């Protein structure tokens, strides 16, 4: 008997382009960045004054910024979320604005910024019966969570998992990234010859992953398949990626093996593409090592919405599923002149692609790497 396939049956998100997948997709296709001057806190002393934030989020409200993102998404979706699903929440800092307030104004209890409190709130919003778990693995948090959800479905431990992801632009993280000299002083330019750092962004979203069998039984529409996954660690450095890209290449090979497909079946790469010199160079080495026979259409969305940290993998999965549906590779926003190593891989224009398989990858602090193989299912497979 063959292992159950893990399919995405529902998803939604909020990004600096606005609420919903259409807003994000159209924003990326427009080629215009959502990275703008930041007015949430004073940025005078930092490397940059820009980030990609969601205009509707307001500080000083009773709800944290994360909850302001999640409430509209999950309230709308709660009717379609099965109560018996496993909840996996993926984040790096969660409601860190609560901790900021406590330290700055001694108003709130910092314990309320603990991740466990956020998990309870998300459980409440989703209507799921059991409390769920949190998965955190730096900037691979949500792609790792999707990988774990899919693995649980394939092994029949679960037949339905809701993965929720969120992270915000806060003074807390902004000051930290600035101290590491990781920020571009203007806007991130992934894979550009003159790239000089990342731009921070914020986002939240969810994907509902189900066994294909249950999805068919419940007559759910199938958006795409999580066909394979690979999680690795460089075991090399806390803040810098392994220069040779071997850890990421290993994650991609594991993912392809898990999906039982060869490299030449892949149609497109959804890159991590932060815009830092070292990350993008490392990724290109990994891509060339795994896909040695030639170039593949590759894009990064971080020039559009910034680096959304723990939410990045989930947002990129949703965008990749849309890209598979449209058979269209979105442009790499802010790209002007491709780096020599990325020449022929990335583009400033949307492009079509044939093979309906995308490898979506992420990497993060501590050397963590993730790769997901995403597939569009054609009518015959449904």
């Amino acid at each position, binding site marked *: 008997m063959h292992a159950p396939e893990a399919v995405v049956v529902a998803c939604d998100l909020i990004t600096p382009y606005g609420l919903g997948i259409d807003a994000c997709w159209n924003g990326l296709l427009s080629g215009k960045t959502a990275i703008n001057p930041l007015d949430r806190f004073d940025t005078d002393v930092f490397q940059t004054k820009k980030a990609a934030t969601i205009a509707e989020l307001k500080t000083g409200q009773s709800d944290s910024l994360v909850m302001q993102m999640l409430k509209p998404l999950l309230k709308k979706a709660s009717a379609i979320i099965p109560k018996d699903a496993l909840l996996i929440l993926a984040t790096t800092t969660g409601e860190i604005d609560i901790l900021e307030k406590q330290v700055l104004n001694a108003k709130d209890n910092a314990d309320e910024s603990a991740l466990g409190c956020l998990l309870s709130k998300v459980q409440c919003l989703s209507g799921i019966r059991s409390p769920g778990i*949190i998965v955190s693995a730096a900037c691979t948090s949500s792609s790792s969570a999707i990988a774990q959800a899919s693995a649980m479905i394939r*092994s029949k431990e679960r037949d339905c998992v809701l993965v929720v992801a969120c992270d915000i632009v806060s003074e807390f993280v902004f000051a930290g990234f600035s101290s590491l000299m990781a920020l571009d002083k203007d806007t991130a330019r992934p894979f550009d010859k003159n790239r000089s750092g990342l731009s921070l962004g914020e986002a939240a979203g969810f994907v509902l992953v189900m066994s294909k069998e249950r999805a068919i039984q419940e007559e759910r529409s199938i958006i795409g398949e999580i066909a394979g996954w690979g999680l690795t660690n460089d075991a090399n450095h*806390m803040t810098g990626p392994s220069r040779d890209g071997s850890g990421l290449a290993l994650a991609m090979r594991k993912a392809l093996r898990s999906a039982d497909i060869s490299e030449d079946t892949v149609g497109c790469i959804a890159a991590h593409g932060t815009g830092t010199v070292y990350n993008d160079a490392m990724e290109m080495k990994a891509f060339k090592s795994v896909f040695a026979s030639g170039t593949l259409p590759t894009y990064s969305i971080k020039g559009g919405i910034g680096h959304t940290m723990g939410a990045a993998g989930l947002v990129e999965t949703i965008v990749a599923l849309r890209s598979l549906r449209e058979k269209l590779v979105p442009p790499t926003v802010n790209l002007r002149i491709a780096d020599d190593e990325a020449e022929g891989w990335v583009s400033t224009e949307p492009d079509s692609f044939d093979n309906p398989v995308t490898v979506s990858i992420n990497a993060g602090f501590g050397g963590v790497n993730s790769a997901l193989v995403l597939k569009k299912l054609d009518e015959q497979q449904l």
Partner: protein
Amino acid sequence: MIISGIGWISKGKYGCVKKAVCTDYTDIKSLHSKLQNESIFLYPVKNFGRFDMTSKMSCCAGALALHDAGVKYSEKHKQDIGIISTNTDGCLKSNLNYFRDYVQTGRKLARGNLFIYTLPSSPLAEASIHFGFQGPLLYIMFPQKHIPSLLQYAEGIISRKEASTILAMKVDEKKAVCFVLRREEDTSSK
């Protein structure tokens, strides 16, 4: 799946279960020195003094568990071993340390070395760098029954063949317990 080694650290004592070791220590510095002198750390831990307390405890507990299990490791010859951890509050104390320091110094310059520990997965990353482990790395928070849930989660990773060996730990600033879990068929040859 079997548990092939367990290392633990409590207030003033540390030990290994299989080897039935229980030894006193006074503070984290003395714990580090003892593990180094007893060759439980097979080589020095780079930058140990700069780690946050949870990272120090993670490295020490990991070394004790690997010693108990008889697993050799090397930073040069990396292994496909996974590492997962849990606790009750993520990295709340490190978050407070970092942000209070930033505010107290006038909100002008954050300290990168404190910032890097504001991720719940950072202690695991320090441990994986030291031990040379290239498998999955995940911090997981369970709402209750932390240790049974952790072991069950590790068992899932092993049974799904995402890694053949897992270091699974529950760690905070004051105490730690770390398990080495392996697929049963892998133990006969080791």
